[in-house]
């Protein structure tokens, strides 16, 4: 179906992109409005004539936003590194080695990735409470394993399967053990897949809300999504600060997506397309 695109197509494309991006655009425009222009008649003006960075300053001065960013970064990074590390071994075995119970294991991995979080929250909450892990990094890293590990295994298995099997045969011929084959032949070839998996796991851990909401309730240990969501007070909602904070967390995401879009797409679709 490879046809050339006509001018009408580009119009459609522009409208589509505009609609998808509109909320971000509006938030960006609102984030530089002075407080008085966020309410009343002026609230619907697209462009402010008095742009200001006050909201951005306020986010860092009046809220521990930097701390939220740091917490999220630490938690998401550690979760990603450790789950991808553990998953890489399991995925290699499932994708490349011959043993019984393979499809059962993959079935378990897939079903666990479909578990609703709410079904595990009460025992996990009791567990972290019992061991004094509420309001700590470990208190979120452990629960995050529930979704990060199945996701890593699932993605890595599909990546490992794409590596040609002849390579292993050749290594075997040369007398390499399976473990040597793994480290010397497969792993170097799997680096792009591991990288893609890491990006997706990182995003999933960065965005997680329910565990973060219930387990890390102290200001000093909140993550970004919970922190921003809790900006809203009982009676007032500081829209200026919320807009600024949203822009701040969106920009790195936009950069990441622009840089790695090919990888992300290949990761997202790898489990769903038969090739």
């Amino acid at each position, binding site marked *: 179906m490879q046809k050339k695109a006509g001018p009408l197509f580009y119009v459609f494309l522009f409208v589509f*992109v505009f609609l998808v991006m509109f909320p971000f655009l509006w938030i960006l425009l609102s984030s530089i409005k002075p407080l008085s222009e966020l309410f009343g008649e002026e609230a619907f003006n697209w462009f402010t004539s008095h742009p200001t960075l006050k909201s951005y300053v306020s986010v860092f001065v009046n809220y521990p936003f930097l701390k939220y960013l740091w917490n999220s970064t630490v938690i998401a990074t550690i979760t990603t590194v450790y789950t991808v590390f553990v998953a890489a071994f399991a995925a290699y075995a499932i994708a490349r080695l011959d043993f019984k119970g393979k499809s059962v294991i993959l079935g378990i991995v897939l079903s666990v990735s479909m578990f609703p979080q709410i079904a595990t929250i*009460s025992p996990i909450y009791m567990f972290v409470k019992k061991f004094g892990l509420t309001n700590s990094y470990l208190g979120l890293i*452990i629960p995050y*394993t529930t979704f990060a590990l199945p996701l890593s295994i699932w993605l890595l298995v599909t990546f490992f399967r794409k590596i040609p099997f002849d390579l292993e045969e050749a290594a075997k011929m040369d007398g390499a053990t399976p473990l040597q084959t793994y480290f010397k032949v497969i792993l170097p070839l799997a680096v792009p897949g591991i990288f893609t998996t890491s990006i997706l796991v990182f995003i999933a851990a960065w965005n997680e809300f329910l565990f973060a909401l219930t387990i890390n309730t102290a200001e000093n240990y909140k993550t970004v999504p919970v922190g921003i969501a809790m900006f809203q007070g009982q009676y007032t909602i500081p829209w200026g600060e919320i807009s600024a904070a949203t822009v701040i967390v969106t920009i790195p995401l936009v950069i990441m997506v622009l840089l790695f879009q090919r990888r992300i797409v290949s990761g997202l679709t790898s489990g*769903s397309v038969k090739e």
Partner: protein
Amino acid sequence: MKNEKKSERRLAYILVAPSLLLILAVAIWPVIQSFYFSLFDYRLNNPAKSSLHLDYSLNLERYLESYPFLMNALKQEVAQATGEEKEQLASLQERLQQVDEEIRADEEVAKRYKQVDEILNNFEVPSEEIKIVSIDEQAAQDLTKTMQDAKQTLKTLNENGQLKQGDKLTGLANGLSGAIIEPNFVGLAHYKNYFTDARLWKALWNTTVFTVISVSIELVLGLAIALLINKAFFGRGLVRATILIPWAIPTAVSALMWKFLYDGQNGIVAKYFADIGIINNMSELLTTGVGAMFAVIFSDVWKTTPYMALLLLAGLQTIPSSLYEAASIDGATKWQQFVKITLPLLKSSILVALLFRTLDAFRVFDLIFVLTGGGPANSTETISILAYKVMFSQTNFGGGSALAVIVFICVAIISTIYIKFLGADLISDRK
């Protein structure tokens, strides 16, 4: 060769083991525990119900903080009392002694009894594991009965002014009866209660409405977009990046963003919707039930349609273009090509995308929690939100766990149905 196979198999199990153990410990075990919790009247804010008790148990710390002093005080009273009161008090003293012996008849209890006694004598605090001991049902009932009688007798005597240390005695008697912990096992009572509770059915209905409507819109729109952009064009990478941004942003953050856009006074989207007549006035979006459900679905469609389009686009790209060429040579119309070639070959991609989206939508939490909190008047309260509220606002972990188990069962049913359609495609070895 056989040996080699064997060692390969052993290696495989060793490599898989850490992941499997972790999954078992952090995902499967908690689900089993959730089910177990749901069989108890388990409440964090009530000391007698803050742990799970299948049997009667005794809080030895409380028991030993009251029993010796009660006996001592009774002894003094007996020595001073006369006539009928003396007899009553003496018999009470004797009965308490008997029950105490009955409790200690059990070897394990006797051992712990001594242990806790020593700890208390050293003015230390016994740990939860040591101080709570399960006791024989008969002994527990005897103790309860004795304490009821004791409280009654002491209360009457105290009111008549026949006791020297009346208030102290009644206080100690109360303390002693508080040491008995009744089992809080309730079986399937939570489930029974919820199945007759209108709020649960409403939440299930809301969840279903949200899931069915948002997923169908996302499928149709996603498919349309995928078909349209399945061609070579300038700026492809940019479009793909645009598509990914709503997916990549934290749901909680995008929900807050939409809350601003929907705002009844200052929300730009609310204003445009009112201007083009989708709603009568701006405040309708977040203050009426229908409006709020629409708002929630609209946000979800915005966030996940692009993702759906991406999954389907990847499926479309695996269909060889030669098929379409052959079809058009045979004179098939565009619509015929779509129905006869695209749809059948896209079937498994569509089903996989639908499976993941349906499950995600059914578990929806972040979006609704931040955007509407389940309101107004529970009109957007989904089953996950309800379970969360019961657990963490009402601190009713038993009931909340029962709801969580219901979510789990629904999700299991949905996946089973989809996987039936998909067959074993999803986990089969593709080479």
